[in-house]
């Protein structure tokens, strides 16, 4: 994949995310890309010296190499990698987190009589009057298993996209 292919693939995947309603994920990736990367580079330092021959004449001369920290834009390959990584965190890694959490609540409900493994998250803010639409339920174990199966397929495809990126770079 050359620079143009990488940019095109990035745009295509962003389009897919937008089509899938994952605007918040796009926003997070865009924010990260806009922040640029922080890198350290070695550059010649400068030092101020007084002339030995002329009184009070100061000059700036190049000195030893020293580390400087600079912000650099991500290149096309890095941007695509950031995007794939964000998809992995949000959609794939979250499957194992959901699974572990769901297993925990099922286990606790088995230990505690009359305790259902249902988990409700109250997303209302202080001062909200209506709260019904602000409650989120944690996925059930069945949902989590479906998520995990879909996530495994998705991981396989992302791995193939990465291979394509790598193969072309190697060739």
């Amino acid at each position, binding site marked *: 994949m050359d620079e143009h292919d990488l940019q095109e693939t990035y745009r295509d*995947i962003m389009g*897919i995310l937008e089509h899938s309603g*994952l605007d918040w*994920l796009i926003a997070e*990736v865009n924010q990260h890309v806009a922040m640029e990367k922080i890198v350290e580079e070695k550059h010649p330092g400068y030092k101020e010296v007084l002339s030995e021959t002329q009184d009070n004449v100061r000059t700036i001369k190049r000195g030893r190499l020293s580390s400087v920290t600079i912000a650099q834009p991500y290149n096309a390959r890095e941007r695509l990698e950031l995007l794939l990584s964000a998809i992995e*965190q949000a959609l794939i890694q979250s499957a194992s*987190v959901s699974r572990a959490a769901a297993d925990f609540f099922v286990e606790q409900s088995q230990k505690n009589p009359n305790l*259902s493994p249902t*988990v409700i998250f109250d*997303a209302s803010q202080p001062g909200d009057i209506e709260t019904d639409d602000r409650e989120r339920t944690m996925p059930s174990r069945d949902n989590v298993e479906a998520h995990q199966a879909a996530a495994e397929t998705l991981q396989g495809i992302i791995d193939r996209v990465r291979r394509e990126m790598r193969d072309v770079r190697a060739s």
Partner: protein
Amino acid sequence: MSALLDELKDALGATITAMSLTDASSLSDQYEAYIFGLIIGAAERQGASVWYEDVNGNRATYFCFRTSPGYIYSRRLPYTHAVIEFEGKPTLEVHMGVRFLGKSGVAHECDLSVLPRSVAQQCRDVCAIPRHDDLLMAIECKYYVESRISLFLARAFLGLQTELRKRETFFVSNIETGNAGKVLARHASDSRYEGIVPDDENQMLLMRAAFERVFDNFKVSYRNLEIEP
């Protein structure tokens, strides 16, 4: 590549449908729930009995957690907390999304917190905010989809840690934290736990061991409860 992108589109659609994900907060909720489970697991491994109650003192029939900062006495919903009991020691409670008064007198949210039941009960009875020195442990949880955690989160955590209990306030995240991690490694190295996810068992065990250490210290340092004649 075009065929691969078509497959990616289908797979993304299938995953999103399966997980019914609405926004990034859903991920954070589930991550906090996962870490909540690690705390309970650590307490159980240290020999605690655990059960669940709501804010009214009734045995919980389901789990109800806050996702935005709230007060421990709020009865708007039957918010759940865990009750942890070590034999002969003061009983503890584990809460999600409760505010504590920092050293400056400002109230801060703790994603997860552990405090003595006696303090929690008093706060519920008189609608008070628990204080930083009531905390046995506080945990800041961050589930991030970016590959690096923003620096401001590290700064915010250091501020929170200064306001609460330095040694027992943990920063827990699902990913390596880049520059933010460097800041935390420098100023809060014992409190920084990165890459805590179920797929990385080593990291998960490290985290659980840290929670166990807090409970173990609690058992050792607290006197046995007085027995009434």
